[in-house]
């Protein structure tokens, strides 16, 4: 119970600190992107407008949440050491793992709020555009038969909101949480935040190629032993970030089966747990 109180206190403090650093200002850029995009797209057909809006908004959500996860996590350990707040906290009966977990909880909360706000903005604009196109369609088809009107309206609603967007948005959050946990692990042995950011960015790019390296390694087609070793190293050390890229296909209208969503969420949770455990293990032996 006491541990939970400490966890909540550190988490809340981290969240407040990050909010004070005006990290939510990026939402203005996101809003400009989403609203500006829909204004610019007015000359396209409604199917194109909806497709562009979903493509750009979900892509931006993924970029912003990933960047936020890496930058917010990479900065806190060096900053706490520089401010000496870490010594004040750890001088009290607070285990190092609990301190890290509290910090990570604060960052997860920030990510959750950021993703929720972006999702609300995106869905709001999508809904407004849909309402406007529906009203136009009704006006144009005033004299059409009920079947014709119903089919036209269905065509509009089919191109806008799909329930599939929700698991897509959840997976964007899970990917950001995984990246935060991974950055925390790098930060636990890094000596500067620049090193942490660069390493996390490199892992981000390599992580998207992990599945290619894994398949190549498992196929065992390369006769060169060192190529097989390199592919194995990439497959074993880096996370499979390609597994979290569901939104590209969700936007295209592909339905997400529940099993795929559950398996992806499970992979995200397992990676997050593994990286956090390793971060806590390394950090507990670090000289401060």
């Amino acid at each position: 119970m006491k541990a939970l109180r400490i966890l909540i206190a550190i988490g809340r403090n981290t969240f407040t600190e990050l909010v004070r650093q005006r990290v939510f200002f990026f939402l203005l850029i996101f809003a400009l992107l989403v609203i500006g995009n829909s204004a610019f797209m007015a000359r396209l057909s409604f199917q194109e407008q909806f497709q562009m809006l979903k493509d750009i908004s979900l892509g931006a959500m993924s970029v912003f949440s990933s960047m936020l996860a890496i930058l917010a996590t990479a900065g806190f350990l060096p900053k706490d050491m520089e401010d000496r707040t870490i010594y004040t906290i750890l001088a009290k009966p607070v285990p190092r793992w609990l301190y890290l977990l509290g910090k990570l909880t604060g960052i997860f909360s920030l990510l959750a709020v950021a993703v929720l706000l972006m999702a609300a903005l995106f869905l709001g604009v999508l809904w407004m555009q849909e309402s406007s196109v529906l009203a136009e369609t009704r006006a144009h088809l005033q004299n059409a038969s009920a079947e014709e009107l119903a089919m036209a309206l269905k065509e509009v609603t089919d191109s806008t909101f799909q329930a599939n967007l929700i698991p897509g948005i959840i997976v964007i959050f899970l990917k950001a949480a995984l990246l935060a946990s991974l950055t925390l692990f790098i930060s636990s042995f890094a000596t500067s935040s620049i090193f942490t950011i660069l390493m996390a960015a490199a892992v981000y790019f390599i992580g998207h190629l992990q599945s290619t390296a894994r398949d190549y390694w498992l196929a065992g087609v390369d006769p060169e032993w060192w190529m097989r070793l390199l592919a194995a190293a990439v497959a074993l050390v880096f996370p499979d970030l390609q597994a979290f890229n569901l939104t590209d296909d969700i936007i295209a209208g592909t339905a997400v089966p529940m099993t795929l969503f559950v398996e992806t969420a499970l992979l995200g949770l397992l990676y997050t747990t593994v990286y956090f455990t390793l971060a806590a293990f390394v950090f507990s032996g670090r000289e401060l």
Partner: protein
Amino acid sequence: MKRRLVVAFGVLVVSGAALIPLQLLIGRSASEAHFRTTSFDIGLRERIGQTGFLAALSGFRSPLAAILWIEAHTAWENTEWGRMAGIFETVTTLQPRSLMYWDMASWHMAWNAAIAAMQNEEQRSEVLRLKARREYEEMGRYFLERGIANNPDRYQLYLQMGMLQRDRLENHCAAADAFLKASEFPDAPPYAARFAGYEMAKCPGREREAYLHLRRLYERGESQRLPSLINLLGEMENKLDIPRAERIGSSPSTPETGQN
């Protein structure tokens, strides 16, 4: 800390190995659900450049496709048909599950580009204008064929193929097949089956098949008994010399509708 770091990396490798079965399972589930069907080959790399390729690999396929689509729209405004075709090729490779891209690419090529080719005043030879028109129409068909190959589980592109074959290529037999295929999907609109019948009726040698198909639709009830269907059935009954007792409206079980 060094020893801890070595142990941590050891654990990282072991957990990486332990998670491989789950990763493979996700790969299988994704492929069964038609996820991640994009093929990242050298052709795509050459078309979108190194940065674009990296962006596409890093999970930004759909925003990249959207940006390229806007570029294609600008090319359309400048009537640069060749450039448009190249961009469509890239966009559809990046997002092969997006029906809108296949549909619009086909429409731009088979309608806009083909009509523009026929109206091209710079080309004096009508034969060459006609050749260019045919090439663009074929390109439109090619986009739909590839779209169907990438989305065999959805009816929309079969329907578009039917319309292309009927309205641009005037191949009624192929149009009938495409509409028929679309109508087999449970979520297809009811007109797909009617269109299949209408086109079949225009396909030489398939008149009887068309009659039986349209008759089945007629017997489904009021929703399918539209004036065009009833008129066509009447014409075909005469043409195929169907006995009076078997014609529509003659049997109490299949009364003719009064709907116009």
